[in-house]
């Protein structure tokens, strides 16, 4: 994959930068420019706290290309304290200890690598808070 594709979403992956709707004050992540609550334009950047709780989770064994060396790993839907849901891996936790409702916080980790000489992609994961 090409570098620009990852650069474009650096703010999202490194800092959880989403948006705040100037009309209804709804918080939006990932950014989508049209507010899902009031359907008006929303382009004001908003930095999320990175705090939230596990809404659902699973440990997967068959990884897609680029992630094979990390399998098995645990993925989750995390409900951020500001409202939106984010899809991410969990880290620094035993898969057997994960529960729905568990408080978590964002950390930065390596997400994937494209072969031995390829890029390392960093981004958010969540760990117990």
């Amino acid at each position, binding site marked *: 994959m090409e570098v620009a594709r990852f650069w474009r*979403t650096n703010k*999202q*992956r490194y800092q959880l930068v989403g948006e705040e709707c100037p009309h209804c004050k709804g918080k939006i992540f*990932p950014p*989508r420019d049209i507010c*899902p609550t009031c359907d008006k334009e929303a382009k004001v950047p908003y930095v999320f706290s990175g705090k939230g709780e596990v*809404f*659902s*989770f*699973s*440990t*997967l*064994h*068959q*990884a*897609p*290309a*680029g*992630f*094979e060396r*990390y399998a098995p*790993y645990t*993925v*989750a*839907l995390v409900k951020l304290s500001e409202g*939106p*849901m*984010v*899809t*991410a*891996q969990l880290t620094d936790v035993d898969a057997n200890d994960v529960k*729905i409702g568990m408080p978590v916080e964002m950390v930065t980790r390596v*997400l*994937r690598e494209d072969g031995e000489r390829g890029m390392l*992609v960093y*981004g958010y994961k969540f760990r117990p808070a």
Partner: protein
Amino acid sequence: MRDVSIIGIGQTIVGEHWDKSLRELGYYALAAALKDAKLARVDALYVGNAHSGALSDQENVGAMIADFAGLRGVEALKIEAAGASAAAAMRLGYIAVAGGLCDFVACVGVEKMTDQQPSTQESALAMSADGDYEAMQGLTTVSLNALLMRRYMHEYGYTKADFAPFAVNAHANAINNPFAMYRMNISPKQFAEAKPLADPISMFDSSPVADGAACVILAPSALAREFTDRPVRVRASAVATDTVGLHDRRDLLSLDGAAWSAQKAFAAAGVNPNDIDLFELHDGFTIMSALSLEAAGFAARGKGVELALNGEIRLGGRIPITTMGGMKARGNPAGASGLYQIVEAVEQLRGEAGANQVANARLAMTQNIGGSGATVVTSILERI
């Protein structure tokens, strides 16, 4: 708008066709359907396919199948809508015939998946999800469905074993389908002990990757009886969409796209769920079956699994599903599956379903889903 009927059907056996290519599979289903309709040529060929680029290094599949089938010069296009590609191809054919632009249209669904390694297959399937915010995090189709299933069990108090009837029913029905991939029974015990893929999903919750192709021929209903004694009328053809990413859903456990698609189809046909005799739903995973039954109005919220536990999804039950084995046991060649559903519904309405015949079947509904609920194509078919 003109009334539209299905005048021919064709399908290949679903399986690991190591000796057959994408173009051969597509052609075999097309040739079978043309023969069934006693037609030599069509005005247009619409090919549903989800993964030819990622798994066969081949795009331009509309022209590819048309050329291989000897239909030189014909209008031919590929339609991609992830796992709903095949039903989307029929939707395009329906628009063309109903709108009076074409008289005879072949709608083919074809998928060639087994040439590639599992990690490549997982990556290809994950392209149906949100690339930047799901696949980038290492999520797969299986794990996204696992997130749905875990939350469903948490909110409604079901156990993993409660999902067994979906898989057991599908396998029992596949035994009598000569085109099915896995024609054997499985027991609830086997379901409970199956290898985990992404907990709580195990091997028997998940439909198998496969190769296959299926085809229907559409024509104006006014001409249908010139070609077949048993035309099947398309009473409704509807598409609706929802967010691609699960994290963007209004309500994780409500498949809004499936509900809107079903409601559009019911309104177009002027019927309601009580009128439907069988429902070929999207059983890519057991959780999708439960959520689809709820979204389409056959079960209340949280009651889809209960409907299955009560035996109402079996042949002879209130709403038989996956009557020829479904994606679970017939096999799930992704971008072809939606037309297998439609071919099987036509078999039921023609009275050709053999030991699996739903008695007096008059109205059948099919629902084909791309991604975890993002693109949803619903069709309602009628025996005339």
